[in-house]
């Protein structure tokens, strides 16, 4: 198991290297001009000389490979460079925002997994029952609903109609101090929306897995031996029904990242997502590359995690190595 983790970690190194170069290459080929993005509206009245000087100052007049090599060597020394769009070091940008995105995504993931598993087991118990029918059709509807639309709907209902939850931000807009209570109450809606948008996949997988398992011989055997329904359902059926879901956990990570991006925008959540979009449209090489590396690492870790969990849950699966 440790071996597999080590092997995957080694494999991640060239992948991340290729990704960084890819980001530089794609950004360089993109039609966006980093100088114009940096100058913003001021660029529309700036003289050509002023713009040319900016190009030199920002270092974007250098060839692609030289720029990438510069970035890579200083990144390896711990210097991630300066973000041109945020006007501050990349490390600061990430440090300021990363935690809030991780908090949001982790909470949402937890919501999706717990709710998805719970509802999935309940629905599988009585396939075709009222609970199964209700939740399944809701899940299919949710699968089609974009996260930002759900977000606006949630704001309209919980913040506007019922006035029970704040509509956005990390804390009340007038508050300057970040307290646990404030963040907790502001986290409810975005995390719930993001979680619910991820929920259908977990629910449908668990429901199918458990329902299949209930029909399998070992479960029928367990029932025949007179084990309690609870033991049969949770101990036998859920355990084998969970297997496909563990794979799903890893593969949902990219989706979670893009979902968080939309949800953060709707709820003015000060996470990393908005910075990612801005970095991309402003061709902010340093920031964009650092964020892409982080996202890639998250996906690789997600896959590793789901493989490990799979191995733990099913002794028949050998770790690759």
């Amino acid at each position, binding site marked *: 198991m440790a071996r597999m983790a080590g092997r995957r970690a080694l494999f991640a190194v060239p992948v991340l290297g290729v990704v960084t170069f890819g980001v530089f290459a794609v950004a360089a080929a993109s039609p966006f001009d980093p100088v114009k993005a940096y100058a913003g509206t001021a660029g529309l009245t700036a003289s050509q000389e002023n713009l040319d000087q*900016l190009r030199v100052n920002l270092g974007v007049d250098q060839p692609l490979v030289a720029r990438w090599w510069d970035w890579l060597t200083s990144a390896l020394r711990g210097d991630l460079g300066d973000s041109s769009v945020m006007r501050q070091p990349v490390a600061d940008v990430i440090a300021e925002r990363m935690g809030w995105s991780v908090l949001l995504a982790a909470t949402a993931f937890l919501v999706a997994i717990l709710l998805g598993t719970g509802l999935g087991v309940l629905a599988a118990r009585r396939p075709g029952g009222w609970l199964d029918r209700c939740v399944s059709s809701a899940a299919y509807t949710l699968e089609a609903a974009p996260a930002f639309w759900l977000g606006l709907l949630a704001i309209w209902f919980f913040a506007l109609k019922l006035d029970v939850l704040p509509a956005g931000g*990390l804390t009340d807009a007038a508050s300057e101090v970040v307290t646990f209570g404030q963040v907790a109450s502001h986290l409810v809606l975005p995390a719930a929306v993001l979680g619910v948008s991820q929920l259908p996949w977990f629910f449908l997988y668990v429901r199918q897995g458990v329902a299949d398992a209930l029909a399998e011989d070992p479960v029928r055997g367990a029932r025949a031996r007179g084990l309690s329904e609870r033991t049969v359902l949770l101990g036998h059926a859920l355990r084998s029904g969970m297997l496909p879901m563990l794979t799903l956990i890893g593969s949902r990570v990219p989706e979670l990242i893009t979902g968080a991006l939309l949800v953060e925008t709707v709820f003015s959540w000060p996470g990393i997502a908005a910075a990612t979009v801005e970095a991309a449209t402003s061709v902010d090489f340093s920031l964009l590359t650092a964020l892409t590396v982080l996202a890639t690492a998250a996906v690789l870790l997600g896959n590793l995690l789901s493989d490990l969990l799979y191995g733990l849950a099913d002794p028949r699966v050998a770790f690759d190595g």
Partner: protein
Amino acid sequence: MTARSIRVAVAATMATALSLTAAACSNPDTAKGGSGSGSTSAVVGIAYEPDSLSPLLGYGKDGNSKIFDGLLALDADMKLRPALAAGLPEVSADGLTYTYKLRQGVKFSDGKPFGAKDVVFTYRTILDEKTNNASRTELDAVKDVTANGEDTVVFTLKYPYAPFAQRTVLPIAPQHVAGEQDVNTGAFTTRPIGTGPYVLTKWSKGEKLSFTANPHYWGGEPEVKKFTMAIIKDDDVRATRLRSGDLDGAILPPNLAKGFADDKSKKTVTATTYDYRTVTLPTHNKVTGDTAVRRALDIAVDRETMVDAILNGDGKPAYGPVPTDSEWFTQGTERPHDLAAAKKILDEAGWKPGKDGVRVKDGVRAAFPLWYLTGDKLRQEHALAYASDAKKAGIAITAEAGSWEVIEPRMKHDAVLAGGGSPADPDFDQYTLLKSSLAGDGFNNMAWYDNKAVDAAIEAGRRSGDRTERKKAYDTVQRELVKNPGYTFLTHIDHLYVVDDRFGPLTTQVEPHDHGLASGPWWNVEKWSTEGAGGSKK
């Protein structure tokens, strides 16, 4: 492996993830605790987030930043008033030297005194080409700036530049802080220290800027003690949060502002602006370069209908960069919509209707593309309306969308739906729009406009220090634009704000094209009284 060991593994993973999250979220905030019961606060929603709060990189260059002061400031009528300077500058007879006496006893919010060295530092840093300031061109006239003792600053100019005093509204940065770090990325860009009425307590990027009143402000401590700008890019979300009571005020597009018309607890404030939309008519294009075509388009376009249909009535027809209600506007240069006259001009110039209704002259079809910025709905609607009006006169315009990267290389030959506007001085817009020597220089003079009479007039307008003489010069420019329009100016756009009734008195400045932090009824939040609109305190 048992179910128990799975649970242990899962629990361990979760615990690690949560503790990492908790550690990453530890709050570095150093603001004083306690929300100060009884103090007043205001929260406004804005659509735009600044890249930086450093004046050295261009923040607040048009004055009126809450954290900083300039040497001068603009009041509600856009007249210059002394701020960090003790009075208006003394200008030498040749217009080449500006001398500012500084206000005494002013301190930065960190307690250190403000002095002449800070002014010199600020301007010299901006003029340094290693500083990534995209607005440096605006200070092009400055040759040097020197301190003359502790309390006097002298600017010497390369050429006489009448609106120079308007440029000195730009905020002054403290040398003892900003001079000690990387000017482009240092901590000062996000944690600024200034002399202004408010002190930035926190900038949660992507979420909000929090300010607290500066108790030692030289202009008197503001009544609104806490001021917050929440950054909400989506118009609908902003309107929703305003309605839910989360915000006290917000900038809104006209259709959403209308939704608050019946709300007794809120006021809608309309700011007039210099924010224009115009169509560039490049001289290098065989069709748009023909003066007859330009003049015909100028009167074939129905500006009144654009204001009503596109802006819901919240705006004015534009005949040049100067809005019709400005003191710099030349009365009598309004051009009413007159399709028949437009057709007559084209007929007389030899543009005869072809088979498909589009006019032709010497084998050239009266057709050209008009570019607008992708995703900008307002520009798109202007472009389509313009094309439809032109079609009635027999000119075929195809509206096309693109990003600036796509548009820029085509600007020499293709028309562009452009926007702009800076209200402080007529020179700011007209010089860069019309000066022939600036043709094709970055985004200056996008239409490659070339008119000797206009060149002479805008040059006279910027060099003369005499107001009557300047007015005469800009009158000449506006009359020349009737005879030979290099652009078809379409509309000036009002900006709408909805604000809670308990604040007041509410005013706005004449606003520029940019939606900076300074715009909106909160431009003078430090002067707001919280007794309601009745308790006026000017």
